[in-house]
């Protein structure tokens, strides 16, 4: 059963140096507040997993939290490149970053395999691309009935998944809706999970399009209203596009970035979720 904790306590308890951490949210419901808390707690040597590492992972990488990135598309959506990611890959700043690169279909299926308790997933993918050479864990697999050769990818089994959702109830059942991405699979594939939410309510009202993660499939829930900013939480907030645009200039330069990190993350309080807010 998931218990409700503060964001700071949740990160302190669940995220350890050296862990493999998946923060998911496909454009929508990106767990920025939790990511910033991971930076604030100065976690190191993380293997960061995410289909679409965008601004939040650029920040984590620039802050030196990661030693490896497992991903399928890394960019600032609608804006351009991730400068901290590039700097880490090409110049090793602030620490070298190993990469493991897949396609979206491959990553999604790797989470599905993890969520399903299977060691691998099968898909029609990667064939003929140079990803097969660049990434070691893409292998052919033969259909035992037709002889057709397909592609296998290994399950993802992160130590901890971190996602943001709209709501939880006091028992720790989690509800999210709108574009739900791969978050259910990320949570179910991971050993532990932390879910930040916009609000904690007595009862989850039925909601069209909602995915519910029962409390017994979640480890910790933390209140973090606005915790997906600058992405959005459908029904609660809208995307802050200016933030994404301005990130380009902030992240381009190591010094500007370091200043931003200091002001906006290290000196900022945990976004929300002090015990008083939880009442």
């Amino acid at each position, binding site marked *: 059963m998931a218990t409700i904790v503060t964001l700071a306590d949740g990160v302190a308890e669940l995220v350890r140096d050296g862990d493999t951490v998946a923060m998911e949210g496909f454009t*929508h419901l990106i767990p920025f507040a939790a990511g910033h808390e991971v930076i604030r707690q100065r976690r190191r040597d993380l293997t960061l997993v995410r289909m679409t590492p965008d601004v939040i992972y650029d920040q984590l990488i620039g802050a030196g939290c990661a030693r490896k990135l497992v991903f399928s598309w890394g960019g600032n959506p609608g804006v351009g490149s991730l400068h901290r990611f590039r700097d880490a890959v090409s110049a090793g700043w602030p620490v070298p970053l190993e990469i493991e690169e897949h396609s979206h279909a491959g990553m999604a299926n790797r989470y599905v395999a993890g969520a399903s308790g299977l060691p691998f997933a099968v898909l029609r993918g990667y064939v*003929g691309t140079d990803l097969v050479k660049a990434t070691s864990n893409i292998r052919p697999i033969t259909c035992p009935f037709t002889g057709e050769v397909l592609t296998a990818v290994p399950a993802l089994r992160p130590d901890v998944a971190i996602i943001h959702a709209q709501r939880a109830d006091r028992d720790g059942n989690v509800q999210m809706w709108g574009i739900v991405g791969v978050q259910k699979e990320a949570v179910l594939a991971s050993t532990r999970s932390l879910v930040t939410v916009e609000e904690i309510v007595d009862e989850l009202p039925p909601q069209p399009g909602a995915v519910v993660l029962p409390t017994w499939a979640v480890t910790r829930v933390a209140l973090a209203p606005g915790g997906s900013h600058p992405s959005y939480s459908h029904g609660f907030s809208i995307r802050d596009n200016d933030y994404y645009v301005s990130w380009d200039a902030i992240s381009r330069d190591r010094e500007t970035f370091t200043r931003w990190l200091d002001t906006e993350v290290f000196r900022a309080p945990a976004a929300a979720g002090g015990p008083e807010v939880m009442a």
Partner: protein
Amino acid sequence: MTVVTRVGVDDVAWTADEMMTVAAARALRDGQACFVGIGIPSTAANLARRTHAPRLVLVYESGTLGAKPRTLPLSIGDGVLAETADAVVSVPEVFNYWLQPGRVDVGFLGAAQIDRYANINTTLIGDDYRHPKVRLPGAGGAPEIAASCPEVIVVVRQSTRTFVERVDFVTSVGHGSGPGDRARMGLRGAGPIMVITDLGILKPDPQTCVLTLSHVHPGVSVDKVRAATGWDLAVAADLAVTTPPTDTELAVLRELEATKGRTP
């Protein structure tokens, strides 16, 4: 890219990007389902839906099937896509149940580099994977769109930087190294049937699979297209000039562009 190409009479004017977007929109047929990425593909698909293809089904990799956005989305995961979709499914489902079996008729792809066989690179520039000259975003949904959509349309601005003899990294397979290659690899879609640029339209030669110039946009010379191509570009015997954007197409396109990212 805001260069205005003035063609024919003085009061007809559009940018090269507008011509490219209009040509891309026209390539979509009514009733098709189209896998849409953000940027020009999304603009073109939304333009098509507002002009000749009102029943075009827009599928975004965020899992929105049949999105009917009232404004141009800023990302493939904008709320307006979920709100207006026929169905919102998970990301694994959109790839496994919808893209992989070939249910989405047309895939729209961009490229950082594209070669004569329409193989696509969106991963890196340079010849060392571990130490690239320029690191690009990577694959995203493209490899499987290129593999599984019955047809693929590539939309990309044309220059020798982009149209190269050989891509530095094959992110998404076009026609591989020539005829029969897709079948040998077990790729079930037809691959790129058309590459639409700001200068014209290229199609794979039916015999050789090599991209061949089939259309030039109004006011663009064949020499100009050749000069923007990194290989010795063949020209189709029946080379045509693209029909200029109609007033309606331009009006709808500009109205659409003005809605970008606006809350509906």
